[in-house]
C-alpha cells in the first residue's frame, strides 16, 4: 500500500486523547470537540532500494555540472565538507548517509589520483563534534584514514589564519569562508536535507562561515522578515545566503553540491517507539501496553537517565533522493523531495496552536535541552514550519508542552547559561537583546576559547536561538508552556500552566471563550501548507 498522505483531523466526541511530545516523555491530551483539529504528517515515503548505487549514479549524472570524475585530477586540492551533528534528528542509524557519500567521493578521487584531500565538519558556530560523533557520521574507515593525520577535522570559524573574506554582496554583506575550502580546486559539499531550510547556498555560505558573515542574516531584522524561514521563496534568510552564493560563485572555489533527502521514519514502523508515528485511534493493544509501560518506566527514572535513553535512539531513516551538481539547480530538486514528504495542506488559520515539543532539537544532540532551546524549537522551528500563512492567526496563542527544566549542559552551552542568567533576566525583547548584548558575547575571549578547544557552541549562539523565535514573538499574542518549570518559563517571558486545560483557560482572555484550536502533531516533522 502506498504511504498515506498527511491530513487534518477534525476532533469530535469520539476522537481519542492525542499524543503530545513532552521532552523525554509524553502526554495524552483530550482536545475540545467541535473546534479542534489535528494535523498529521504523511507516512514515511519508501526509501531508495540501492542507496549506494543511487549515490554513484548521481555522482556521474549531476545536474548542470560535469560528472564528479571529470572534475577531479591528480595534484588538485580537494575538500569535502559535510553537515554536522545537527542533522538529521534524531541521528540516523549506521551507516550514515554522509559516510556512504564520502566513501563514494573518496573512491572516485582515489581513482583520479587525487591525494590532497581534507574533510571538514561544516559546523559554522556550532560546537565541535567529538570523535565518537565524527566516527558515526563518516564511518570508522574514513575516520581512521584521515583523522590521525589531521585531514579530518572540525571547522573553526574563530581561527584567525583559517578564515578568508571572499567579497561583499551588493547589500554590503561580508562573505566569509573556511580558508582550506575557499582555496581548494573543488569543494564537495555533502548535505542532509531534513527540513526545507537546509541546503542550497546555506550549506557553504553558512556552514563554512563565521560570525563576520553570519551576523548579516542571523539577526532580528532578517528573521522577522522571513515568513517563514522554512519557505525559501519568502525567506530573507535564504535571500541573503543566495546573495552570498553569488559572491562565492564569482570568487570562491568551484562547488560540487551533493544533497540528499530522507523519509520521515524517525521512530520506526516496528520497535518500542513505533506508536509515536501512528495515529492514536490506530494504536494496537501492544502499542497501548508499550506506551503505558514506557510512561511508568520514564517516571521512575531521574532526568539524566531519561535523557540517556532517548538520546541513544537512532532513527531508521531511509534515503529518498540524492542529487548533485550545481548548487541552485540541485536544491530546487531537493526541495521538491522535502515537500513531497512534509507538506500537509491546511485550510485557514487557527486561534490557538498547540504542539508537543520533543526531547531533541538541532543543538542538543547528546546534550541537554535547555530553556532557550525549548523556546527556539517551539517558536523558531515548529512555528515556522508553514508555507503561506502561519498556522496560528496574528495575535493568537501558542501552547507548547515541554518540562522546560532549568538545566544546562556546562560544556556544550556555557554562553547559554550566562545568556539565561544575565540577558533574559533583564529583557526578552530580541531587538534590545541584539543591540545591548550580542557583541559582548560574540567577541568574548573565553567563549571563543571554549568554542575552539572544548565542545561549546559559540558565544553568540544563544542569541541566534532567540532571533529564530523573533518572528513568532512578534506574531503571537501569548505563549503558554504546559508542564514546564514555572521559574524557567517565566524567565523566557512566557506563561506557565500545569495542564492543557489550564493553558486553554489562560488563553481565553486573548482569544475569547470559544477559540479554534489546531494541534501540530509530531513526530515526525511536517510542514503545514496553509491557505
Amino acid at each position, binding site marked *: 500500500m502506498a504511504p498515506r498522505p498527511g491530513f487534518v483531523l477534525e476532533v469530535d466526541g469520539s476522537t481519542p486523547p492525542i499524543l503530545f511530545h513532552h521532552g523525554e516523555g509524553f502526554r495524552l491530551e483530550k482536545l475540545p470537540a467541535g473546534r479542534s483539529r489535528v494535523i498529521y504528517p504523511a507516512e514515511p515515503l519508501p526509501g531508495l532500494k540501492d542507496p549506494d548505487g543511487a549515490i554513484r549514479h548521481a555522482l556521474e549524472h549531476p545536474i548542470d555540472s560535469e560528472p564528479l570524475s571529470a572534475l577531479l585530477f591528480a595534484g588538485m586540492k580537494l575538500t569535502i565538507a559535510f553537515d554536522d551533528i545537527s542533522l538529521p534528528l534524531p541521528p540516523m542509524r549506521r551507516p550514515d548517509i554522509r559516510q556512504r557519500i564520502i566513501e563514494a567521493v573518496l573512491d572516485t578521487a582515489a581513482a583520479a589520483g587525487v591525494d590532497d584531500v581534507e574533510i571538514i565538519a561544516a559546523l559554522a558556530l556550532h560546537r565541535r563534534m567529538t570523535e565518537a560523533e565524527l566516527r558515526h557520521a563518516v564511518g570508522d574507515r574514513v575516520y581512521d584514514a584521515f583523522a590521525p593525520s589531521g585531514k579530518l577535522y572540525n571547522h573553526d570559524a574563530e581561527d584567525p589564519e583559517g578564515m578568508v573574506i571572499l567579497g561583499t554582496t551588493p547589500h554590503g554583506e561580508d562573505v566569509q569562508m573556511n580558508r582550506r575550502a575557499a582555496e581548494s580546486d573543488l569543494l564537495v559539499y555533502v548535505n542532509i536535507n531534513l527540513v526545507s531550510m537546509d541546503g542550497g547556498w546555506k550549506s557553504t555560505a553558512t556552514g563554512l562561515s563565521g560570525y563576520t558573515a553570519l551576523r548579516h542574516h542571523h539577526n532580528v531584522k532578517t528573521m522577522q522578515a522571513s515568513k517563514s524561514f522554512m519557505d525559501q521563496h519568502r525567506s530573507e534568510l535564504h535571500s541573503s545566503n543566495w546573495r552570498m552564493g553569488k559572491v562565492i560563485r564569482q570568487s570562491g572555489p568551484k562547488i560540487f553540491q551533493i544533497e540528499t533527502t530522507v523519509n520521515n521514519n524517525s521512530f520506526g514502523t516496528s520497535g518500542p517507539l513505533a506508536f509515536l508515528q501512528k495515529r492514536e485511534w490506530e494504536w494496537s493493544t501492544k502499542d497501548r501496553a508499550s506506551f503505558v509501560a514506557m510512561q511508568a518506566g520514564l517516571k521512575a527514572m531521574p532526568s539524566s537517565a531519561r535523557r540517556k535513553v532517548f538520546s541513544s535512539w537512532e532513527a531508521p531513516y531511509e534515503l529518498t533522493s540524492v542529487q548533485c551538481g550545481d548548487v541552485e539547480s540541485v536544491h530546487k530538486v531537493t526541495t521538491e523531495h522535502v515537500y513531497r514528504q512534509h507538506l500537509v495542506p491546511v485550510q485557514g488559520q487557527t486561534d490557538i496552536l498547540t504542539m508537543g515539543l520533543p526531547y531533541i532539537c538541532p543543538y542538543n544532540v547528546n546534550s541537554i535541552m535547555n530553556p532557550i532551546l525549548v523556546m527556539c524549537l517551539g517558536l523558531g522551528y515548529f512555528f515556522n514550519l508553514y508555507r503561506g500563512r502561519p498556522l496560528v492567526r496574528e495575535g493568537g496563542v501558542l501552547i507548547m508542552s515541554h518540562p522546560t527544566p532549568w538545566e544546562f549542559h*556546562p560544556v556544550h552551552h556555557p554562553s547559554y547559561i550566562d545568556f539565561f542568567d544575565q540577558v533574559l533576566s533583564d529583557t526578552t525583547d530580541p531587538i534590545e537583546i541584539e543591540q545591548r548584548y550580542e557583541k559582548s558575547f560574540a567577541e568574548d575571549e573565553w567563549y571563543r576559547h571554549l568554542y575552539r578547544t572544548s565542545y561549546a557552541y559559540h558565544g553568540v549562539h544563544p542569541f541566534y536561538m532567540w532571533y529564530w523565535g523573533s518572528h513568532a514573538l512578534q506574531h503571537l499574542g501569548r505563549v503558554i508552556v504546559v508542564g514546564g518549570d514555572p521559574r524557567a518559563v517565566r524567565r523566557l517571558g512566557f506563561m506557565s500552566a500545569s495542564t492543557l486545560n489550564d493553558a486553554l483557560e489562560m488563553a481565553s482572555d486573548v482569544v475569547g471563550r470559544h477559540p479554534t484550536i489546531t494541534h501540530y502533531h509530531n513526530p515526525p516533522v511536517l510542514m503545514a501548507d496553509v491557505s
Partner: protein
Amino acid sequence: MIPEALAGKRLFITGSTGFLGTALVERLLREVPDAELTLLIRPGRRASAAQRARRELFRNDAFDRLRADRGAKEFEAELDRRVSVVGGDVSVDGLGLDEAGRAALAAADIVIHSAAAVSFDSPIDAAVEINLLGPSRIATVLNELGVAPHYIAVSTCYVAGSRRGNALEEPVDASPFYVDVNWRAEVAGARRARADADAQSRSAELLKRFRKDARTELGAAGGPLLAAKTEQLRQRWVDDRLIEAGRTRAASVGFPDAYAFTKALAEVALAETHGAVPTTIVRPSIIESALAEPVPGWIRGFRMAEPVIISYARGLLRDFPGVPEGVVDVIPVDLVVAAIVAVAAAEARDPRPDPTVAPPVFQVASGSANPLRYRRLVDLVSNWFSEHPLYDTMGQPIKVPQWSFPGRGRVEGQLRRTLKVVTKAENALNALPLRGRQAELAANLEEKRELAERAAGYVELYGKYAECEAIYGVGRLLELWEGLEPGDRQRFCFDPRVIAWDDYVRDVHLPSVVRNARVRTSPGPRGGETRTERLRRQVLHPDRHFAAFDLENTLIASNVVASYAWLASRHLEGRDRLRFVARTMAEGPSLLRLDMADRSDFLRYFYRRYKDAPVDELRIDSAEMLSELILTRSFPAALRRVREHRRIGHRTVLITGALDFVIEPLRPLFDDVVAAEMTVSAGRYTGELTGAPPTGESRAQALFDYAAEHGFDPAEAVAYADSTSDLPMLEAVGFPVAVNPETRLAALARKRGWLVEQFDRSPGFRHSLLPLAPPAPASAGTKSSPRT
C-alpha cells in the same frame, strides 16, 4: 558666672575619647569660649595621639552642632587655637609623658581625669592599672612637678558597693559597710595573678589544648595562622582567668564587679597620694544618653543599658533579673558634664580645699532626688517597643517578652540550659562536612549560640545593677546647684530633678539607642541595597586592583585527586581500571585526613604519583580533561564572575595548588596563573615540585608577591576562596569573598562581614563519584579532531 570663672584657664583632660570625655570637651569648647584644653591621649598602634584626637574625638557627631554653629573653617581654626594634644598613658607610672607633656601638665590650672576601663569585666590587672592606680599616678606626677592645680577625679557612685540604703557623698572608707582592704596589696595581688595565669597558660597541656582549639576553629589554615590563633587563644585564656579573678575578688569584699571595686580602692589611694594637690571627686551613677546637650539623645558607643535594651527588643532576653520597686540610677551624660564644669569653676573661684584631708565628693545621680523605679523603666521600654517594634530578617515585627522579675539565679539557669542545647547542636553540625547553604545554617546556629552567650553575659554583668538598692545622696551637688546664678543654671544644668523620666525614656533615650544599634525598624522586605548587594558592589568596584581566585570548590567542584584519577585512568583498560578504582577508593580516607591536616604536605605526597608521567601525553590529556571533567564540574556563575572582573578592568589571577598542566586549559580565563609545577626530566615528570605549592600561607605570600610585582595594593584586592585553608589569602586582601564556604569559613565570614557567594554547578548534569576518563582512543596522542 562659670564661663568667666574659667576664662583664661588651662584644662588638662584625660579620657577625652570616651563617652563622658567627648561630651565634656564639646561642652567646654562650646560654652566656655575662653578656656584652653590640653588632651592626654594614648597613642594607638597605628595612629599618634593627635591623629586619634582628630579621628576618634572631633569626628564624633557630638561636634556636629558646634561645627554648624561656628562654620567648618572656624571650627578647625578654633581647635588649632584652643586645643593641644599630648601623648601619654594613665596605666603606666609617670603617665608616659615626654618633656613637652610634663610641661603641659605643669601649666594646667585644672586637671580632669575621666579615663577609665569602664568595662565591668576587665581583667583584674587591667582594672587595677587603669582604674585603681590611674588617679594616684596623676596626683603623683603633679606633686613631683611641684604644681597644685585643681584636680578633679571622676569616679562612680557604685564605689559604695553592693548594699541597700543611703550612700552619701563621703569618702569610701567613711562608710560603716566598707571592708578595709589594703590597696597596695591588691595591686601586688593583681600583678601576681597575671604572672601566675601567664605561667600556667604556658604549660604543655594547655598549649596543646589551645592548638587543638585553634585547629577546630580554623581548620588547615597553615602554620602561621594557626600559630597566631593559638597565641590569641592563650592570651584570651589568661584574660579570662583574670576576669574571673577580678569578679570573685570584688564579690568577696562586697562589690558588684571589678570596676566598682577598683574605683573604690582608687579613691582610698587618692586620699593618701594627693598630697598638696587640691582634689575633688565626682561620682556619676549610670551615665546614659544626653537629655539636651549637645543634642537630645546623643550617645557614644554601645554601652551598658543599650545592648540589654536591644537584646530585649530583639526578643533574645526572655527575662531579666531585677527588683521591680528598686531604683535604677541613671543620669544623662550632659548633667554629669555640667556638674564637672560647675565643680571646676566653683573651686577655681573659691579658696582651694585643704590638701591634707580626704578630697570632697560630689555625687551626680538621680536615685535620691528623682528616682526611676525599675518596674516603670521596664514598662516604658516594653510599651515603646510594642509601639515601635524591631523587625526580623523576614520583615516581621518582633514581639517583646514580658518580664516577670525573677531572681538572677533563675534567669541564669534558663540561659545556661539554652546555651547547652545550642552548643551541642552546633558541635554536631560542625562535625559534618558541610558546604554552601548547609554550612550557612550551621553558621546561623553559631550566631544563635553567641547571642545566647551574650544574653547570659548581660544578665551576669548588669543584673546586679538592676538589683542594687543603694540610694545615692546628692546633698553637696544640690548645694552647688543652689549657689549657681540663673544664667549658669540655664547653660550648665545638672539638677537631676529636671528629668521627666517618661519623656526621657520614650522620646530621647530609646529612639537614640535604636538609631545607634543599626537594627531593622521598618517592616517588609528591606528596601534598597541588601548587605550582600552592597558587598558585591564593593567587590566589583572599578577601584579594586585585582582579583585572586582559588580553584577547587571556588570555581570548580573538583580537586587534585579527581584530576589525577581522570588522567591516570585515561590510559588504563579493563582489569587495570577496576584495580585502579579499588585502590583509589581504599586510599580515600587517609588522603582526606592528610589533606585536612596540612594541604601542602598532602600535595607533595600526592603529586609523587605523577612520577614518570610523560609530559606530552599529559598536555594532550589535560586539554581533553577540560571538557570531560573540569567544565562539567565548573560553577558557571563563578567563571562569569572572573570575566566580570576582567571586564571591569581588574587584573585576575588564579592561585592554586593544582598542577600547571592541569589548569593549562583554564589559562585564557585569567590574566595570570600561579600554580604548582613539577620538575621534568627527559620528557617525564619527576613527581617533585619545583617549589612550595601555593597553599595556606604560601598562597598569601604568592598573592603579596603578585601584588608587589604589579604595583598593586592588597588592600584594594579581592580574593575568592572556599575553605579555612585559604584564610591567609582571604585575610591578606581588603575584599575577601567566601565561596560555598564550609562551616568554619561560613562562621568566620559572617563574623567579619565578608561577602559570601553561593556558586552552583550547572543544574541537570550528573556525573559519577569517581571521575574516570573514557579510555583514550587507540591512536593515543591524537586528538579527536586535531586542528592544523
